[in-house]
């Protein structure tokens, strides 16, 4: 969908992604709760937009606070961020790991419907409240409940392990593992450039070698993935504002400091059915194609992409869904360094889900914040070159196993 009026995003903010890997993380000590994350991200954004009085509506993205934190009815947290949001509209949206993307498009729709000019989109998840073995039950809610029983103890790693297994079989094990190891490598190297990233403190001198050496072992984890192929458990929040042209004026932000939404696509697959081809992320492919067609661009016009690498194999399949490499050659494309920060199309430049973290409901918003930082020259040490002839950024956010997908294309405001 190409918006019928100009839509902008700006004033992005990420909290630290807390979890294993961060020095300050100690599973035995008490940690900040959901209120802390919602407030930190929300208040930081409000400060950048001239206060709550400038915000018409809040959209909160979250996946499983009812289970991780025993909390539902999330719109009620908007006025806790700032009294200025009291008595104003708020809504919460859920689409598993794709909740953030849905929050962004919900915000966009509100501006398009002219029910708001400035919408704050805030995503959060606080997952370290339980051990991984129980967290796996919670995350399994992103799949169809009727297949949970026959699924793996670690349900989602199990799903993507099955995909990886078929992929190895079809396109070659070693070649694919090389690409996956490089995906991990890039995630770590990029995360080290962003102080909020979960892997910011990682000091491994050769992440590629570590990941390449490690063999999947079904006895200790799942058959076809290692733990380094997986994103981690994270506590974090991300937020930004979505505005109209008038809204941008109201908050006093220059267009150059905002990104414009060129097109967006929500594409949904039937959760009760298995994917037709396990080696392909079809929903992502359709979302990407639709968004690019609406924007009138091809993958060659992209300066950078934030894609949903809950598992490294999903990163590789996204490269193929984008058409950057033919089916079965995504791993080679990655192994050749083409997705690295200095590569052909830099991807996940602050680490992505594997390196920056995967606070499920926040992830889609975090991706947009990263694109906003990169396109407006605010990415600090993680800043990549944005070529003038390829000025576009893209986010791909996926809920569940290629079920709830949002793809958005951005360009710096002008």
């Amino acid at each position: 969908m190409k918006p019928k009026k100009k839509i902008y995003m700006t004033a992005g903010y990420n909290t630290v992604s807390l979890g294993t890997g961060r020095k300050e993380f100690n599973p035995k000590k008490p940690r900040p709760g959901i209120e802390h994350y919602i407030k930190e991200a929300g208040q930081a954004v409000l400060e950048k937009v001239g206060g709550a009085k400038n915000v018409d509506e809040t959209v909160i993205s979250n996946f499983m606070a009812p289970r991780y934190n025993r909390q539902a009815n999330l719109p009620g947290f908007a006025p806790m961020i700032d009294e200025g949001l009291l008595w104003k509209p708020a809504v919460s949206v859920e689409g598993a790991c794709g909740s953030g993307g849905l929050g962004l498009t919900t915000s966009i729709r509100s501006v398009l419907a002219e029910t708001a000019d400035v919408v704050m989109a805030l995503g959060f998840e606080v997952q370290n409240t339980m051990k991984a073995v129980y967290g796996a039950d919670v995350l399994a809610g992103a799949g169809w409940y009727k297949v949970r029983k026959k699924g793996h103890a670690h349900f989602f790693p199990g799903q993507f392990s099955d995909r990886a297994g078929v992929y190895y079989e079809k396109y070659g094990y070693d070649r694919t593992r090389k690409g996956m190891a490089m995906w991990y490598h890039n995630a770590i190297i990029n995360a080290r450039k962003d102080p909020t990233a979960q892997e910011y403190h990682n000091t491994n001198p050769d992440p590629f070698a570590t990941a390449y050496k490690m063999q999947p072992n079904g006895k200790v984890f799942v058959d076809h993935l290692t733990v380094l192929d997986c994103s981690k458990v994270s506590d974090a929040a991300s937020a930004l504002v979505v505005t109209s042209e008038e809204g941008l004026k109201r908050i006093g932000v220059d267009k150059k400091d905002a990104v414009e939404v060129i097109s967006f696509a929500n594409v949904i697959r039937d959760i009760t059915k298995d994917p037709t081809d396990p080696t392909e992320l079809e929903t992502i492919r359709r979302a990407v194609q639709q968004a690019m067609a609406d924007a009138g661009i091809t993958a060659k016009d992209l300066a950078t992409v934030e894609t949903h690498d809950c598992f490294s194999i999903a990163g590789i399949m996204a490269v193929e869904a984008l058409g950057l490499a033919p089916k079965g050659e995504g791993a080679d494309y990655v192994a050749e360094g083409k997705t690295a920060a200095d590569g052909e199309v830099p991807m996940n430049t602050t680490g992505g889900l594997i390196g920056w973290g995967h606070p499920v409901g926040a992830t889609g918003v975090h991706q947009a914040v990263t694109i906003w930082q990169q396109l407006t020259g605010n990415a600090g040490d993680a800043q990549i070159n944005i070529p003038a002839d390829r000025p576009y950024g893209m986010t791909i956010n996926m809920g569940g196993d290629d079920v709830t997908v949002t793809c958005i294309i951005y360009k710096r405001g002008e």
Partner: protein
Amino acid sequence: MTYEERLENVAVLGAAGKMGSGILLLTAVHMADLQLQNKDKTYVLYAIDVSNKALTGLMDYLRVQVRKIAEKKINWLRAVYEDREDLVENGEMIDEYIFDVMKIVRPVDVMEAAYKANLVFEAVNENKDLKVKLFKQIKEHNDKVWFFTNTSSVPIHYLEENAGVKGRIIGFHFYNPPAVQKLVELIKTENTDPELEKFALEYAKNLKKIIVPSNDFAGFIGNGHFMRDALFGINEALALAKEKGISLPQAIYMINKVTQDYLVRPMGIFQLMDYVGIDVMQFIMNVMNPYLEDEDLHSDLLDTMMEQGVKGGQYSSGAQKDGFLKYEKGKITAVYDPDKKEYVPVSEFAEEADKMLGELPESAVSWKSTLKMKNKDEVLSKFFNDIKNSDTLGAKLAVKYAKNSKAIGEKLVSDGVANNADDVNTVMLTGFFHAYGPINNYFD
């Protein structure tokens, strides 16, 4: 009776004690796993103890520990509960498994429960008369039962003769805590039924334990080595104090440091005595001593400590109680002075003591760093060789200590307690977490 049949009805005596609770946990989990695979059978495990309060605590302990075990074998649980449509999530299966284990266990405070058992694990206090009394009582009502005793020091043949349970008893000596420690010393008498031994080996294998056979001499291999090694440490400290004209606390500090830092052990010998408990040590030595012909396993210093009520051991939380040494947050802060009947802060003598011991060679390694070391032997060889060639007091004490430790090990073999040097080394490596066995050539 097959292996599985034997395990259908089991009793643990002293089930709420330190060792009994661990033995109960491991056995309950093993039996529950059999129950899950043999649904037409009924498995029963009596947890027998005289203390009802402790039995209540045991049930709490079980619930926490079984949860941890269940979390680790979630893949297995998902397979086992495959047909249970009501169990979908990991959490539901873990809860169910905890209940499946708990429902096998019958906590009771009456000995009669053991009259129907096919197998009795005994872990009551280290009191041979008590053990004999209980075995006799059970035997009179139960002619098929096998006895597994956890005694640390009583010869098994003594229990066998006095309780009249010929051939039906075996020493199955777990280390503390049984749920963590991999080592079990297995002690037969000359009458032990070969079927009983076969069962014991299979049971140990299923519990993933490492078995070292020990012959039936008081103290067996582990305590046989430890008690003598500790006594040597005590005597070395007393001699050092006299010879150098320093206080006993300072000498204890120095020997403790030498045995830890120079000998690359997980803790110094005095800390280990505190860990085991001075009361437990004294007790075990008293039980062992009458059986020893050519040596006197006894220490006046231990008696004095006991008289003054300084005992070491652990709190129920697992935290270390003060003994020879005083601990604050796990760190040694003071050393006991039996003359003054008080603790002397380490800061009063540490500097002088360290100076007297001298510098450690540069090749020194910590015990912890050896845990994952691939070239451990090479690294230790170099370090110990440097110690051998060093003139410092610390190095000299270390070499003397190591040679004595080796001699103790060799004597266990020549006396026929251990079958060979490897068995002695395995016990010290796995039961005491030493980085190398006492019978080695590092210090020759």
